[in-house]
């Protein structure tokens, strides 16, 4: 790295600080809010000095929300469970379907292969709202409304193109000759896929899977329209905190903290794989 003058160093420091504050402030603020009551949150001027309380978390975990108008049942823990189940199942299904498809697209150029791959990618261009109305109709006819199966199916719109396109790139980076060398040494096409292609693309598949998981986890609009309360994930479940007697800011903040924790942990864990995945070039000899 080239040396910097003191002035450059200072400017760089300021720029970095601004960026960090810009991105971290909402998260830190929400984290602080989650330990406050509605009164301390809404006082003017706002202050970072308060007596922390765990009431918000307690309410979420017990499922009893006490408001001025009485006690409300909330299904937050169930929503959290739904989020985990829907995201994991969607990504698992997308991997089972997407990885072999990515391999096929990477290794075999057949008539229309580019068109099919592009069509799958185009699902990511279309705004979800565009397809929601017809989808709602179809789901009602098919009896898929408010089922986990239906939601996981729709989540493939999010996960499948992502996994397909990322993993395809990783497969294309593996020299086909490595696989040929394995096949000519007396192995079938399928065992070559399992023993050579999959392990070599492993870090890429892991990275794509984690990315798809985060996208699935953060999805809001599909679940809002296509599922009712008992099947909804946390992103939609948080709406329950907008109650007749006002918005429960403290509980919302606590719910957000709880719901971003899994994705945050995964993202931190995934960093390793992303770096490993990107240094795959060593395969090329």
């Amino acid at each position: 790295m080239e040396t910097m003058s003191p002035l450059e160093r200072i400017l760089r420091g300021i720029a970095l600080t601004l960026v960090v504050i810009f991105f971290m402030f909402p998260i830190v603020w929400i984290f602080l809010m989650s330990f406050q009551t509605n009164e301390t949150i809404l006082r003017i001027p706002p202050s970072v000095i308060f007596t922390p309380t765990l009431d918000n978390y307690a309410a979420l975990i017990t499922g009893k929300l006490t408001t001025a108008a009485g006690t409300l049942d909330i299904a937050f823990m169930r929503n959290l469970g739904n989020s985990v189940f829907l995201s994991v199942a969607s990504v698992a299904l997308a991997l089972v379907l997407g990885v072999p498809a990515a391999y096929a697209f990477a290794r075999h150029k057949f008539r229309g292969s580019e068109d099919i791959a592009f069509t799958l990618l185009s699902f990511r261009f279309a705004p979800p709202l565009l397809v929601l109305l017809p989808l709602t109709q179809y789901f009602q006819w098919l009896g898929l409304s408010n089922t986990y199966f239906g939601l996981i199916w729709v989540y493939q719109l999010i996960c499948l193109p992502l996994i397909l396109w990322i993993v395809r790139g990783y497969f294309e980076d593996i020299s086909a000759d490595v696989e040929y060398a394995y096949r000519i040494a007396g192995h079938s096409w399928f065992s070559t896929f399992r023993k050579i292609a999959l392990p070599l693309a492993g870090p890429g598949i892991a990275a794509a899977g984690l990315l798809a998981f985060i996208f699935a986890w953060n999805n809001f609009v599909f679940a809002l329209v296509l599922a009712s309360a008992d099947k909804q994930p946390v992103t939609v479940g948080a709406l329950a905190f907008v109650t007749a007697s006002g918005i429960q800011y403290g509980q919302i903040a606590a719910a957000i903290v709880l719901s971003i924790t899994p994705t945050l942990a995964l993202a931190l864990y995934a960093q390793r794989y992303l770096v490993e995945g990107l240094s795959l070039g060593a395969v090329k000899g």
Partner: protein
Amino acid sequence: MNDTALSIDNVDKFYGPVDYGVHAVKRLSMEVKKGEIIALLGSSGCGKTSTLRMIAGFEPVSRGTISLGSRQVQTLPPVRRNVAMAFEGYSLYPPLTVRENIGFALKASKLSQAVVDEKVASIAKLLEIEDILGRYPSSISGGQQQRASLGRALIRDAALHLLDEPMGQLEPQLRAVLRGRIKHYIKERGLTAILVTHDQTEANALADRIAVMEGGVLQQFDTPKKIKERPANLFTGTFVGEPPMNVFEASVSGSGTGIRFGLKDGVHLDYHTSDFSHPVREALLKRQKVVLGVRPYAVRRSADGVTGRVAVNQWLGDQTHIAADFAGGTMVLVEHDRTSLEIGQPIGIRLEPSSLHVFDSESGNAISHGEELA
């Protein structure tokens, strides 16, 4: 007893739709005997690697048949063909050490670990990679990877060994040593090998027969000696040989006792009718236009020869390359001694009739080599 290891019969290869795609290999037919080493020699894109990949089973055959021994294999997957291959891009398995990479090819053969280790050690010694057996492919040089890849192919006991540019990344000295050792190894075990190369020295040193390819067409398939002495056409003549053969277009005319080749700039070469056999004379005089070829080693300097002017005089340490302006073109001569010729100095050039290769000016096919018909 059938001693044919491989026979390729009328094979076509199209990339894209058959008959409309890129026609990479055109009606290729050749037979390889057991225990032979064959070199597929040609420039980039001549179809040699496509041919090798069709034999291995990585590229579908568009038309025609490929047989290993007596069984047709063109529709079988690679796993069922029993061929070994060394890849130009090495293609070692990154998670395995060099030792595992080489020994890996023997896994399927169910040999005991001790036998595998012994075989790996002996091939590693042959290829001078004993000291890197414990290392991973990503931590060794290209030349070492190439030798490991070669070892992985040679260690197998396959019906046919395919070697795609097996020594392209090695230093010249090592290449010369390994050529000899590999040839000995293959011959000793009676293996059959097909080598793809664009390096004619390698082809000459290793191969029993060379298949020269160009534009997807097999130009000539013969021993290195025959290819050098009796090139089947103008392409083979100019492609094989270093420095390349000198070629000049010429008109042919005959008088009672002589044959005259008229070159550009009014230069003409006169020969006595007795310099050529009767059939050659007839064949030559039937044509008006021919192409004359002569190897640089065969060009002689002589006071009574045709005049040319020295344009380049290079001493290469063991031989002199002289390029002379001659008949509107360039004539290259190779001499074994250091010659002191000034640039621009006139020299007499003599082409012995026995060293002349005559080609048809339209088809490029050889008409005669020296006194004999092609």
